[in-house]
């Protein structure tokens, strides 16, 4: 295919109508650690694998799930662990920083917390700008954004291209097709938040290499109290025991 001749510049379309750099970015995301999100009737849960390169790494210092505002949280999917050095994990830090700033600017203007859709749109706009500007490259992360506002619980995925999708349940990274099939079977519209957490754990377990434990997964939830929080390892242990 003549596409490879067009992969040098991210702002040049290939003959097949693709922006090859973005395709590469999506591939990078697709080979990363699995993360997933499930929207329940009364909340949203997001979860991810947390595979560390060595047992010597202090796992409490690694946090893939972060909050953007008190009522919106995010998890990202990166290529692989070596990319922590080559610029992907840090990509997510830049996006999180920009999103937090946008949320605060909105609050400063309107004295109202930013609705989830607006924050997702602004974040996606930032990612799109990096696909159409000179001298920059696309972000190497996809984000799963979970939030709860006046419109209820919401789950969004934002890609390096700048497209965003609203999901009832979704997965990204390795093992995504198995995970999505599993979620399709298990998802119901009237699921409670606790059921959603159990389902999330079971979905992660499906493709997990090795023994799942509270040290190698991360879970974030937001309920009808509209406060996003990352579960502590002991809370994760409780859920794991219920699942066994």
């Amino acid at each position: 295919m003549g596409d490879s001749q067009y992969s040098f510049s991210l702002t040049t379309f290939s003959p097949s109508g693709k922006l090859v750099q973005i395709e590469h970015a999506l591939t990078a995301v697709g080979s990363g650690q699995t993360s997933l999100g499930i929207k329940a009737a009364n909340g949203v849960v997001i979860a991810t694998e947390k595979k560390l390169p060595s047992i010597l790494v202090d796992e409490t210092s690694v946090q893939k799930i972060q909050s953007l505002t008190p009522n919106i949280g995010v998890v990202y999917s990166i290529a692989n662990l070596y990319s922590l050095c080559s610029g992907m994990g840090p990509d997510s830090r830049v996006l999180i920083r920009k999103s937090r700033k946008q949320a605060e600017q909105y609050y400063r203007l309107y004295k109202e917390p930013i609705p989830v859709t607006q924050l997702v749109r602004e974040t996606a706009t930032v990612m799109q700008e990096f696909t159409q500007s000179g001298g920059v490259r696309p972000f190497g992360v996809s984000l799963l954004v979970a939030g709860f506002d006046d419109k209820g619980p919401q789950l969004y995925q934002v890609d390096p291209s700048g497209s965003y999708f609203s999901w009832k349940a979704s997965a990204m990274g390795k093992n995504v097709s198995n995970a999505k099939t599993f979620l399709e079977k298990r998802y119901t519209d009237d699921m409670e938040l606790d059921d959603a957490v159990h389902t999330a754990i079971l979905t992660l377990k499906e493709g997990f290499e090795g023994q799942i434990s509270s040290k190698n997964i991360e879970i974030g939830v937001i309920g009808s109290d509209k406060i996003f929080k990352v579960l502590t390892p002991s809370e994760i242990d409780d859920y794991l025991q219920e699942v066994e």
Partner: protein
Amino acid sequence: MSVKLQIFEYNGSALVAMVGKNCFAIASDRRLGVQLQTVATDFQRIFKIHGKLFIGLSGLASDAQTLYQRLVFRHKLYELREERDMKPETFASLVSAILYEKRFGPYFIQPVIAGLGDEDKPFICTMDSIGAKELAKDFVVAGTASESLYGACESMFKPDMEAEELFETISQALLSSVDRDCLSGWGGHVYLVTPTEVTEKILKGRMD
């Protein structure tokens, strides 16, 4: 004989908003002057932002019109992006932010904002020319006749008035106050807003 230029008194204005039972009323005078000369007797000071949100702008008329255009612009974009109307409290925060942007070269206006918020709860507020918000549960006033308006409202206001009584009260308060102010008057313009309808009435007062 030359009059010292008081920029907030250049055009003359009177504005008042009052809270009733699940409704609000906002009223203004109709005079537009250039210091002591009357130039128009049908000048509009109260503008609709959306069905349940009104803003009155007292002070320099050209700033009032310009600011109104900017606010309508912002609200239209907000409506398109967020697919909902702005709540009155949110709108008040926006106006305050826009006024403070011009802190060292301000708009010479004093806004009065009135609307029905969540669950149709009436909301009124005013602010100074650089955006210091003043919320009130009963009434807010602005303009050259504001001192008389304060007195009239304070004595005539009762909480939880129904729409008709609220209309009577705000009209009497406005007309009696502008009669004591040479720069405002030439009739009145009253908007009465309930969750179901908006009534607009012109008042005939002393035309002088």
